[in-house]
Structure formats: C-alpha cells, structure tokens
C-alpha cells in the first residue's frame, strides 16, 4: 500500500473509531481551517508498535476535545469533573483503538504486532507534527485533530 493509500486508510479508520468508540463524528478539515502553529492549544498522545514492522502513531487534539470524548465514552456530562479527569485516558484509548484497527487494514489480519502503551506527548513535539505533510487533519465536534504516522 502506498503512502497516499495509507493516509486515506488512516482517515477512514479514525472516522469509524471516533464514531463507534466515542460517538464523535468527524469531517475532513479544510486547509484554511487548520490552526496556526504557535496558536493551537492542543494535547497529544503517541503509541509505538513493533513486530511485523515498527512505527509510531501520534494524535493531537484541541484542548476540550479530550473532555468531550471522555464524557461521550462514559455517558456523563462534559462539564462533570469525571470528564475532565479522564480526558487524557480517553485520548490514549482512542489512539490505541485507531492503531489496532489501522494496522490490520494496511498489513492484513495475519501479521502480529506488539502495541506499546500510549504516552502523553510533550508540547515541544506539536509543531513538528503540525507541519508533517502526511498528517491527517480532521474536524471533530468543532475541534481540530491531527494524526501522524512514522513507519519503519
């Protein structure tokens, strides 16, 4: 599968996972709607995989999306304290599920992968990922979200 197809596949997986796991609908984000570097208040997580091949997926989302996703996943109000506390957990789990669904779509359902534990990204990483030309940008309930993939 070439890089363009992988990007399309990833976008499709993200849309399905966000809808099925977090009841969040996504849409392609217009270039003109992308946040400006240095002005985007975002939280990021990454997950590294190994086995059949190695790589890392990273996800950044506008702050506030994490609470929204957690609230949806838990069936509670977005303003509830539980939603705020569990937002980062929700981002990590969404990334985890995206990776788990992306890899079989790209490599088939036979290869075995070892998925690492999702980790919070340092803010210093944001600009690099925002400028990744292969990044997949989506809009999710009014929040910008970007995914990047590094594959070995």
């Amino acid at each position: 599968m070439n890089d363009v197809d992988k990007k399309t596949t990833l976008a499709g997986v993200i849309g399905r996972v966000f809808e099925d796991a977090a009841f969040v609908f996504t849409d392609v984000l217009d270039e003109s709607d992308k946040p400006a570097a240095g002005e985007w208040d975002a939280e990021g997580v990454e997950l590294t995989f190994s086995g059949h091949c190695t790589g890392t997926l990273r996800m950044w989302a506008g702050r506030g999306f994490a609470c929204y996703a957690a609230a949806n996943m838990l069936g509670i109000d977005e303003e509830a304290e539980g939603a705020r506390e569990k937002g980062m957990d929700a981002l990590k789990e969404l990334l985890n599920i995206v990776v788990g669904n992306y890899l079989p779509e790209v490599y088939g359902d036979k290869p075995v992968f070892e998925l690492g534990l999702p980790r919070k990204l340092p803010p210093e990483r944001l600009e690099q990922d925002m400028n990744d030309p292969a990044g997949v940008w989506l809009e999710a309930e009014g929040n910008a979200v970007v995914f990047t993939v590094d594959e070995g």
Partner: protein
Amino acid sequence: MAYTIMVVDDSETIRAVVERTLGMTGLPIEEVIHAENGRDALEKLRGKWVDIVFTDINMPEVDGVRLVDSMNADAEMSEIPVVIVSTEGSTTRIEELRKKGIKGYLHKPFTPEAIRDVILENLGGWDE
C-alpha cells in the same frame, strides 16, 4: 441468578466504559469487579468467585496473556471463562490465545450486543 463480572484494564476510564457497556446489555449483573492489571486480578480472584473475566492484553506488571496462563495453572480459576478485550486484530494472535483456552475475543470498539452475546455463549441464559 445475576452475574459477577471482572474487568481488567490498566485504564480506569476504560474499565468504566466496559462497565457502562455491560449495563447496556440488559443482562442481570450483580457486581462488576475492577482490576488494574493481571496481578491485581489474580489477588482479587483468590478472594472472590467471578462468573467471567474480561481482560485487556496490554497492561503493565502482569499483562493479559500472563493472567490467562496464571488462571489456567490454578484449579479453581481455570474454570472461569476469560474473554480478551483488545485493539489487536491479528488472527495469528487470536489463534494463539484461543489455544491457551480463552473463551472469546472482543475487538475494540465493540457493541453492547457483542459483549452480551459472548456472556450468553459462555454462561448460558438466565431465569427471568
């Protein structure tokens, strides 16, 4: 008879999501016991019987595979059906786990119907 179910995952949020999904199945559930990894699950299983265990694979300290192995090595725990709940989608991995005796595999994201069906497959129906 209502079910006692154990949910094993290192994420408190995900355990809460699974518990919420269990509540949406319509099945009679007496108690949902949370464990944050395989070691925690084994400690709790030594003190309390559960009808079925749902466990993630990828957890720190004692992961899901080691949990299955440890339960298989215990005369009483080996009777408890274990269902893997995971994001991993490799059929090769699933087959390896089935050879260890797991009773089901739920690939995330899963629906209340999917978790209900695996409970009924393993524990049978209930008297309403």
